[in-house]
């Protein structure tokens, strides 16, 4: 059994919506007591639909959004207790890649400078060292170093996602949160980027938190997965076990909604009856290593 590299316990993020001078706002529980752990070298999937809290969970873990409560441990240390300078240093080990390669890269910076920037911020190496490192990173993610002086708009969507990945890898992180990294890409390009992520994981011994809504993709690359619904994890366990025998009604509805790429396959749609979900049910073990929030 591996030791967990990342542990999340009771993570909670409440947003206050509306409200003003004379009115109290309503509290939205975007993330509501989420706990999971990720082993070193593993790819852990976090799936759910829009508004389920999966992206907010990822952002809270890197403190891009400050959580309301809970604990995030990286290599045994409580990340949420770090001072801001300690946190900046810790971000060397924990990086994020984003969904939209069109809006997450600064359009006025050359690809070279986008990848170089984290090295400058963390004061790593001389100018020559950095230049060599940037070219090496470019090759690592399958880009041609001859294109280093191009601007983001001169690259395709898949290539832009590779630039984002090169930037994330610049500081040699151990842990990467990939938030919907391929959902803006065409299907033929998605496969290229997913294969690259899998190759890099092997070569660099990376640990991934893979946030996605596409269950087919998650099944492909995640050994374990957690399904989020309305801010809570409703089911968690080995990906194959969950696909084979989903225990929670929401997971069943979600799996049955995946379009089947076979015109002859029987269609058995399971609709979610909202009344069948008990919102205060705790996760219980339904099989060894397979948890679900069912009574």
């Amino acid at each position, binding site marked *: 059994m591996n030791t967990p590299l990342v542990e999340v316990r009771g993570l909670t993020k409440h947003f206050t919506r509306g409200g003003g001078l004379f009115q109290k706002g309503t509290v939205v529980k975007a993330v509501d007591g989420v706990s999971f752990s990720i082993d070193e070298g593993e790819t852990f999937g976090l799936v759910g639909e829009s508004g389920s809290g999966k992206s907010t969970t990822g952002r809270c873990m890197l403190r891009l959004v400050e959580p309301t409560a809970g604990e995030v441990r990286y290599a045994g240390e409580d990340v949420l207790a770090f001072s801001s300078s300690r946190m900046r240093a810790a971000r060397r080990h924990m990086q994020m890649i984003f969904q939209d390669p069109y809006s997450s890269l600064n359009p006025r910076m050359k690809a070279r400078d986008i990848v170089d920037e984290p090295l400058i911020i963390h004061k790593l190496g001389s100018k020559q060292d950095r230049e060599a490192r940037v070219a090496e990173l470019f090759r690592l993610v399958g880009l041609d170093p001859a294109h280093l002086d191009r601007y983001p708009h001169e690259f395709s969507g898949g290539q832009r996602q590779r630039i984002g990945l090169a930037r994330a890898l610049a500081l040699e992180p151990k842990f990467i949160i990939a938030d919907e990294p391929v959902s803006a890409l065409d299907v*033929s*390009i998605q496969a290229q980027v997913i294969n690259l992520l899998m190759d890099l994981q092997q070569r660099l011994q990376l640990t991934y938190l893979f946030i996605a809504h596409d269950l087919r993709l998650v*099944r*492909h690359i995640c050994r374990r997965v957690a399904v989020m619904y309305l801010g809570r994890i409703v089911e968690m366990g080995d990906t194959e076990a969950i696909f084979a025998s989903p225990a929670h009604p929401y997971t069943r509805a979600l799996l049955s909604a995946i379009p*089947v*790429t076979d015109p002859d396959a029987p269609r058995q749609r399971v609709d979610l009856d909202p009344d069948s979900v008990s919102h205060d049910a705790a996760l219980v073990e339904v099989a060894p290593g397979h948890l679900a929030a069912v009574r």
Partner: protein
Amino acid sequence: MAADVLLSVQGLTTVFDVGATPLVAVNDVSFDIRKGETLGLVGESGSGKSVTAYSLLRLVQPPGRVAAGRVLFQGRDLLALSEKAMCGVRGAGIGLVFQEPMAALNPVMRVGRQIGESLVVHGLASTRQARDRAVELLRAVKIVDPEKRVDDYPHQLSGGMRQRVMLAVALACKPPLVIADEPTTALDVTVQAQILDLLREMKRTFDLSLLLITHDLGVIAEVADRVAVMYAGRIVEEGPVRTIFRAPAHPYTQGLLASIPHGRTGERLVAIDGVVPNLAHLPPGCAFAPRCPSRLAECERAVPPDVRIDEDHRARCVLHAAAGAGAGR
């Protein structure tokens, strides 16, 4: 043109006049849609599938223009109609469902009025009748409490409900053909499943033909009867949905199907190498040749012919040229 063909697109070519040479976004595209049939038009971004739809409705804006072709609908060539006559076709003859309902619906108009608007515009109903009809349509697209919802504004509805309203708008004048451009792309997968179920049901209830534009082969497998695959402005393969999924003929179609994740944990995905070509720098021969695993020398010389593989299956690929004769469309 066979009797049961509702829409016949022949040699449609749409160009964008930008720069020195016009960009050909839709290149000699031909297909038929029969009565009651769903044709899925599938392709990646920039393949020309949406421009095809806008071209046949004559909604392409400059610098884009339809440069050639015929669009026969109910016996008339839509490209030859006056703008006034064309207005009579849009909505009444052909309904349109867009990808992003929040952008397509008017945010300051109650949904009931938007649904009834085309009935009033086409002289099919008075304002009062249009409202009653809007309630009926909302009920038909399975909106709960239609009498109340008819007075809602779009922002008061969820994404899935907005897409249902879009469908009600498209169906208001009972058009024989509906074009749906990525109708489920902006939706969550469980909502997508509901909308696809609804589309299937509406097809039966309203006796519709459907042109469904999507990048998702899963959606195609769920809804379409026939499939046309577009790449760099051309249809590279067309056939019955079962044939396309069971025995795809074009290497691009094969690659697309293979790149859908369907395996088990840890397996590598099958990717198509390279990138979708820039329309301004298309190779002289087959546009897919630079990425094609089965490429031959001749692929790079000339655009491959449209080869008829069997009666209702064709592919633009030299690999099949020896077996079949030219499709002769």
